């Protein structure tokens, strides 16, 4: 790796670690100081390495410089010293003795503490995700803006406000207490789930960026698995779900970047290793008596790793969708349940259920009706597809519906 590739690479992998360790050391009030020190460290690296060449161990170099900069900072900021040294220097008499602990274990502990700090209901979910991308994943403001199809200013303001709010509420950066883990973990998992979904279902055309978002969600989820206190069945279930979904990355887009629907995917492109890992973590998730939506969604995703349409597959998926709906209503899940019902009990039965859903205004609903009526009542199918086309907002959706209408008219001529 040459210098022009190395620094962005290290920025991506190391920035977040040093920032987390510094934030963990300094506390929430001094988040910006932590970020400044790390940015400054990378600036020094760029300058020094371009003149003297890349050091033998670039990561160690960064850590040493970050440590020195931290020490200098503390020495030169009297206020900081008075306020903080007492809190942070457990056994150091003088500022000089404060050690920035960049050991593997402390990096992991710091990142875990930061996950729990950032995934706090005090700030909105979208703020949590933005802040997580910025501080825990080393994403730039532009990249976050791209992921959300937003602009730099909006994201910048959002992150700034979120930080202010966390400071205002004096959220502590600390290891989550065992007694409150199950409750707080719920918020953390929701954020990681949404971060992953943002990458997986995003309308953004930037496939690399989308895969990065998913990879980051998986990395943060894995941090939770590595700590015995947060290695709960729900955390394993969510990780399993992510593995199953991620296994289809290669198969779900064509070389031009267009989406390939599940039915049309080449299952040989599904990543077997990730499927195996998904199964492994789903098994690990199957303990205790708390059945979460992640368990159910992971189980559904598991059945989708079987390409063949068997009755067993769809009967299981149907039951899982039933359970998912009982746990939490969602229009998409209601439609998926109906689709699974059609696969097991036939279209006529599914139409009865579909008509009860009353999701007028949703183009997916009319597409589902069109699909169910096809071959049973073709004029009704056509009407439904036309309604879907009218309601769809993106070109991709409209094109997909048009191709269904075309298939239907070919069918009628047979």
């Amino acid at each position, binding site marked *: 790796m040459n210098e022009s590739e190395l620094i962005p690479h290290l920025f991506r992998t190391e920035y977040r670690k040093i920032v987390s360790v510094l934030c963990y050391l300094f506390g929430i009030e001094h988040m910006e100081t932590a970020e400044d020190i790390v940015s400054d460290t990378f600036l020094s690296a760029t300058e020094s390495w371009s003149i003297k060449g890349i050091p033998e161990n670039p990561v160690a170099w960064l850590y040493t410089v970050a440590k020195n900069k931290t020490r200098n900072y503390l020495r030169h900021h009297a206020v900081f010293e008075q306020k903080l040294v007492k809190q942070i220097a457990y056994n150091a008499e003088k500022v000089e003795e404060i050690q920035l602990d960049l050991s593997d274990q402390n990096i992991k502990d710091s990142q875990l503490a930061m996950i729990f700090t950032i995934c706090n209901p005090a700030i909105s979910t979208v703020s949590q995700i933005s802040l997580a991308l910025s501080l825990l994943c080393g994403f730039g403001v532009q990249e976050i803006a791209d992921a959300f199809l937003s602009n730099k200013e909006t994201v910048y303001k959002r992150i700034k406000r979120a930080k202010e709010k966390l400071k205002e509420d004096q959220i502590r950066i600390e290891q989550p207490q065992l007694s409150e883990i199950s409750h707080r973990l719920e918020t953390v998992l929701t954020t990681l789930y949404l971060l992953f979904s943002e990458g997986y279902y995003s309308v953004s055309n930037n496939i690399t960026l989308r895969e990065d978002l998913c990879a980051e969600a998986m990395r943060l989820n894995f941090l939770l698995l590595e700590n015995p206190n947060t290695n709960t069945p729900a955390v394993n279930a969510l990780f399993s779900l992510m593995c199953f979904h991620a296994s289809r990355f290669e198969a779900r887009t064509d070389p031009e970047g267009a989406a390939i629907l599940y039915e049309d995917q080449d299952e040989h492109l599904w990543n077997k290793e990730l499927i195996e890992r998904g199964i492994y973590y789903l098994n690990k998730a199957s303990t205790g008596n708390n059945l979460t939506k992640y368990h159910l969604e992971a189980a559904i995703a598991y059945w989708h790793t079987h390409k063949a349409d068997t009755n067993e597959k769809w009967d299981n998926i149907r039951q899982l969708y*039933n359970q998912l709906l*009982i746990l939490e*209503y969602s229009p998409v899940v209601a439609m998926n349940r*109906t689709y699974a019902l059609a696969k097991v009990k036939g279209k006529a039965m599914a139409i009865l259920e579909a008509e*009860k*859903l009353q999701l007028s205004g949703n183009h997916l609903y009319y597409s589902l009706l069109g699909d169910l009526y096809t071959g049973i009542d073709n004029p009704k199918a056509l009407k439904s597809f036309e309604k879907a086309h009218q309601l769809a907002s993106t070109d991709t959706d409209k094109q997909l519906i048009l191709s269904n209408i075309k298939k239907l008219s070919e069918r009628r001529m047979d």
Partner: protein
Amino acid sequence: MNEFLLIFRRAFGSSEEQPSPEMMQQSIKQWQDWFGSIAAQDKLVRPLQRWDLEGRVVKKDKDVINGPYAEIKESIGGLILIRAKDYDEAVEIAQGCPILELGGNVEVRMAVTPAV
């Protein structure tokens, strides 16, 4: 929309009224389908609550008996809260309840909201 209480009752009296394990297995799927159908319409008011099969009954002399089955012919099998427009709709939903196939019945009651 109104809220309705659906209470399922079934006789637990004699052994010939007890369903076989196969019937139970089949019935679990039917219950899931029925609950799923209600939930898919967003008509389930709150998540399902499971109830144990133990039970106590307090009688009028304040005597307590273990399990309702000895003295009360019918026992509550479960209850759910649903949303429906009116009694007609609530009853239509109740007619799909699997307890009917096990010889039970469903009592439907509308929640009364105080006039504002």
